[in-house]
């Protein structure tokens, strides 16, 4: 019985299943907003806490989770869940209020109060509590110190600090120039661009969901799934050789996973036409990769234009693609920057699913000049 449960959890933590469950779960929670209630939060955290505590009896789970430097990840899991719930809960409550004709809570409490004592005491209390937490944490748990550095002996797995493991996880799907350089840059630029792209004047200064649905869904998908989930699974579920291991699995250094990944060019030339890949020189390389180049070009440069068209120009079934109202509302510059950043962000899940479904390695591959997408 317990073994069956463990097998089930191991299976469900696999990159494919976990990512899909988390994404669908998040989308469902946006659709059925009553799940952000106090009762469901209590149930959710009770289940999570029981799962976590009970799992400590499993030696493999304990080994990974109780590593001193992995403690923050447990913190991330509980805190990020809690504060996401807390924000959404207040947002939904405000939405109910405004639907019922009352003002949002933040507006009701508009009167000015003395900062001493109302705020200063809260801050003092926060400082005292936090100091206690830090002191207890530091007394109970020694900071890790491994063997002295030895440049000749690389550990397996070699992991970046935990907050960069989302980027390291991206290395599975993209080359380092994208995962390690371009995407981090785009994350920073994209975050800074948010206030200039988002022209929705509503929801400034109070929690709400209804008035800012698109913004919140996109941001939380990025933050919760593409960042936090990848950090957590990169820490807990990636073992030697960056192979996946379920939470109750032993990190076996000798496990080999076959890599049968193929490129778009292989699909086109070898599988479809039954020919060898074109070789020799620059133009042969271009010819080899023409389909991939076309696909990436269409995704980055044609799709944004197509998406700006009004609904009528789309065949039935594809009407959801139309972002014409955003184009109208935001103007061309904001729209193109915003949509481009969004498509870049979505390229990560797209590449993930392409990998899982077709073993796709590169869409465009010029290994000669390290230009692989």
């Amino acid at each position: 019985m317990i073994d069956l449960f463990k097998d089930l959890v191991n299976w469900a933590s696999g990159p494919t299943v976990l990512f899909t469950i988390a994404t669908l779960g998040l989308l469902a929670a946006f659709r059925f907003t009553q799940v952000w209630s106090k009762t469901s939060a209590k149930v959710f955290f009770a289940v999570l806490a029981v799962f976590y505590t009970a799992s400590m009896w499993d030696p493999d789970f304990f080994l990974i989770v109780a590593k001193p430097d992995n403690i923050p990840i447990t913190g991330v899991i509980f805190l990020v869940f809690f504060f996401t719930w807390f924000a959404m809960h207040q947002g939904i409550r405000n939405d109910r209020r405004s639907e019922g004709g009352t003002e949002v809570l933040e507006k009701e409490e508009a009167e000015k109060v003395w900062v001493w004592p109302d705020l200063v005491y809260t801050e003092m209390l926060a400082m005292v509590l936090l100091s206690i937490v830090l002191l207890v944490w530091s007394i109970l748990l020694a900071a890790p110190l491994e063997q002295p550095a030895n440049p000749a002996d690389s550990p397996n797995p070699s992991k970046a600090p935990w907050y960069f493991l989302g980027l390291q996880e991206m290395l599975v799907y993209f080359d380092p120039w994208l995962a390690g350089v371009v995407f981090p840059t785009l994350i920073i630029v994209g975050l800074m661009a948010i206030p200039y792209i988002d022209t929705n004047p509503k929801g400034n200064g109070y929690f709400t969901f209804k008035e800012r649905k698109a913004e919140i869904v996109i941001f939380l998908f990025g933050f919760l799934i593409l960042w936090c989930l990848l950090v957590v699974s990169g820490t807990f579920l990636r073992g030697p050789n960056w192979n996946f291991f379920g939470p109750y699995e032993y990190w076996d250094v000798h496990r080999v996973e076959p890599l049968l990944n193929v490129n778009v060019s292989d699909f086109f030339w070898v599988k479809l036409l039954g020919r060898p890949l074109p070789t020799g020189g620059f133009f042969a390389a271009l010819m080899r990769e023409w389909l991939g180049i076309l696909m990436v070009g269409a995704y980055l440069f044609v799709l944004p234009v197509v998406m700006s068209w009004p609904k009528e120009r789309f065949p039935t079934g594809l009407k959801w693609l139309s972002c014409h109202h955003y184009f109208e509302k935001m103007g061309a510059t904001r729209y193109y920057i915003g949509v481009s950043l969004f498509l870049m962000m979505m390229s990560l899940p797209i590449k993930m699913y392409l990998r899982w479904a077709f073993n796709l390695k590169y869409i465009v591959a010029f290994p000669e000049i390290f230009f692989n997408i």
Partner: protein
Amino acid sequence: MLNRILAPLSAAWKEATDSQVWTSIFRHGKPVSNRNRALVMMSNVFLHLHPVKSRKAGIKLRYTWCMGGITFFLFLVLTFTGLLLMFYYRPTVEYAYADIVDLQEHVPLGIMRELHRWGAHAMVITVWLHMLRVFMTGSYKPPREFNWGIGVVLLVLTLLLSFTGYLLPWDQLAIWAIAVGSNMARATPLLGTEGPLSASLTLGDISLINAGNDARFALLGARSVGQPTLLRFYVLHCVGLPLAAAFLMAVHFWRVRKDGGISGPM
């Protein structure tokens, strides 16, 4: 009974707060009247980061989660404990590891390293949560666009502070984490040896970008993680990045006030 203990205590408190020393430090009466509540906020250099009065909703814990404040407090804790660590730690391949061992084993009250490390982990999490709160209340919207941008830079600086500090214990965990992290720099387009297009940067048939001068070399000060890297990361960790962060925090807090205080509905 309780009164027997409390009465002398409160008498002593009154004695102390009426003394010349106390009144020379705090130049106003106790904050029991509204006038003094205003004075306390204005005459104290630390408290004057705050306004005298504020909208009730904006200072509620359920609105700000005090997350920015907590992040700032952690930064102060890290500055203080980091300073103490600097008394003992020497950034050389020869001594670094041994100094860390000493710190934990021979220094009285040796939890400074723990406070510093766990505090750093905590700060990374609280910055994320602060950003989440600011996003979820839409507080990046006009007129706070610029302060959100300052915040993003602070987020990056926080991660870089944590990253550079990770190397300093000079153990296996440290150098390999930095090796993995900095390997990515090798793939910088144009500027890394294994980055797209960098091979096209040539003068005649001499390639301009090689392992001795590419982006990764600039980060590490060497071809692999070594003494120059340790020194570089140490200087950045203890001087460069904290100064930059402190400077930007000053701007950040200033702008919170100048942008109209904590956000609220119009």
